[in-house]
């Protein structure tokens, strides 16, 4: 589904990703872990198409199509979804209307008829239940005055509503208490199917107690320096990153 080859990208003169390779197949969950500043958020921003980042080299293919040529909205229409580490507050537009616009813009791009209001409401009710979201929340302004946990839950709610093919969860676990974490993880697990894939970007192993990844990658200094199964996450939790990063540093020195 997703093929990243030798990706080099950064902000202005500052190269952050230094030749990253990653392949994600449908039905898989990948966890990308790594210390602060290793390039985790840059990777998610580049996949989603944030124009603040410049791609210098390499390629990203999504379902055998060059993703880098597409605008952020076109990527979303193809089924790429990024759950933001810091969701943006948008005053003046309610959650329900934001989601409605978002769904219908995608449908328009795909040449599908707009979702009728009853169908939309039905779908919303269903997904709200999945994420234990109360009704009043729909009429609140998008992320305005939301707590950190509410913002993250709102991200997963949108993911559920849009049912993307590839979801990237950027530090979705940060700022969540244990109950919220469980609800969010439960949502992600229920949305999982053989046709979609998830990339979980996280600093801690906490979320991985609830969502079992098929692969765990360690991102360090702009490259994936180690890949393994879910056991790697446990190892990192108990031993920290030093034992791998030191090795990598030696290798690059």
């Amino acid at each position, binding site marked *: 589904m997703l093929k990243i080859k030798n990706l080099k990208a950064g902000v202005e003169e500052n190269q952050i990703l230094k030749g990253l390779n990653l392949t994600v197949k449908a039905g898989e969950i990948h966890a990308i872990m790594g210390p602060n500043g290793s390039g985790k958020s840059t990777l998610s921003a580049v996949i989603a198409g944030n124009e603040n980042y410049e791609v210098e080299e390499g390629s990203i293919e999504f379902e055998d199509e060059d993703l880098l040529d597409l605008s952020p909205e076109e990527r979303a229409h193809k089924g790429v979804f990024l759950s933001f580490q810091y969701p*943006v507050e948008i005053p*003046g537009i309610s959650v329900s209307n934001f989601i409605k616009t978002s769904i219908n*813009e995608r449908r328009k791009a795909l040449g599908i008829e707009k979702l009728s209001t009853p169908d939309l409401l039905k779908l919303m009710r269903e997904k709200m239940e999945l994420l234990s979201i109360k009704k009043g929340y729909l009429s609140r302004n998008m992320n305005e005055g939301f707590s950190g946990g509410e913002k993250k839950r709102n991200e997963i709610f949108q993911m559920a509503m849009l049912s993307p093919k590839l979801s990237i969860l950027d530090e979705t676990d940060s700022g969540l208490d244990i109950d919220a974490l469980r609800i969010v993880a439960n949502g992600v697990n229920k949305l999982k199917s053989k046709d979609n894939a998830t990339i979980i970007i996280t600093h801690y192993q906490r979320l991985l107690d609830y969502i079992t990844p098929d692969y765990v990658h360690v991102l360090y200094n702009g490259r994936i320096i180690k890949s393994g199964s879910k056991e790697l996450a446990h190892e990192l939790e108990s031993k920290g990153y030093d034992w791998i990063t030191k090795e990598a540093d030696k290798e690059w020195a």
Partner: protein
Amino acid sequence: MGLINEIKNYSDKKNLSADKRSALDNFLENGFPTIKDEEWRYTSLKKTISGKYSINAVGRDVTKKEVEKHSLGLKHKIILVDGFLISKPEIKNISISAYSEFISNTNEALEKLNYSLAKNGYTISVHANTTIEEPIEILFFNTVENNFIQYRNIITVGDNSQVKFIEKIQNIDCDNVFVNSFTHINCESNSKLEFNKIQNNTPNSSLIDTVDVFQKKDSVSNINTLIFGGKFIRNNLNFEQNGTNAESNMNGISVLNKNQLADNHTFVDHKSPNCRSNEMYKGVYLEKSKGVFNGKIMVREDSQKIDAFQSNNTLLLSEDATINSKPQLEIYADDVKCSHGCTIGQLDKEALFYMRSRGIGKEEAQAILTYAFASEAINNITINKVAMLAKKLLINKLDVDLDHNI
């Protein structure tokens, strides 16, 4: 040549009273204000007054269908055609009649001109202790092309009375009409007024609209100015607080494109202690449009405990759009709270990316953010039909397919 000569020719044939003649002579001596005049520095009348005009000409009748088309559909309607009052509602404890002559003390050229040439407009008096629940719509229709027309209106809101108005000027079968309107409003003690001005006239229309509000103690006056259409608009909105605990509120929204110009000059004269003023003007400027804002707040020496707030926030959505924004605070009392803020900016890039990453196209996302920006001022409008109209006009102007129920 130009309008000033037309005014000369017109007035030579008229038998004006001594006061009006003197006001007119004074006007003719100095002419229309130019950009050398500090109050008109960014707002040039040159093009507007260089055209050929008739003065106060009268055209045809307006049909019921035309009224319906341009009305907000409110129950109470006052209808004026080419300045003449042709229809008015019967409302208990309100007297509504045509123009009545009154003098105003002014140094403003346009007001002098208005005083000397005006023959038309409305006179409204809301008697004391009267609450009018249903808003009253005031519709001015113009039917004569290339006409320079004066409206001169006076409203009195009696002691303890409450009333809401919506005023709209609409050209029918004509485009280039230059309106010079003056409205004098008296808010008596403990009265409450909401006055909504919808300025969405035809693309070549010009308007100079001066509203002077005189407030007595405990009165509240809310004036909302919604600018969407027209080529040239200058609003002078002046409040004089002549009693304690008076409150003056202003909301303004300008959404302009093409070569439109809109200038909002406001002035709050805090002449009494323990009074408040709140001012929020928002502007969205597209293409080659131009905005001007000048917000003057004066707190007189003995006016202690004044709470005055002013903001002017602007979105410039094109390289060629401009805004000149100037707060002007003159404070001579020491125990006052005055604040003003002015922002000029583009849309938040982070928010744009967030929305685009959810599949919302760039233009749609820009429109939603712009809508969100302007809606703060729209939310202060208490008449639902006016708020809905403002939202609809905003969406139309941004040229997007957006559900205006958001």
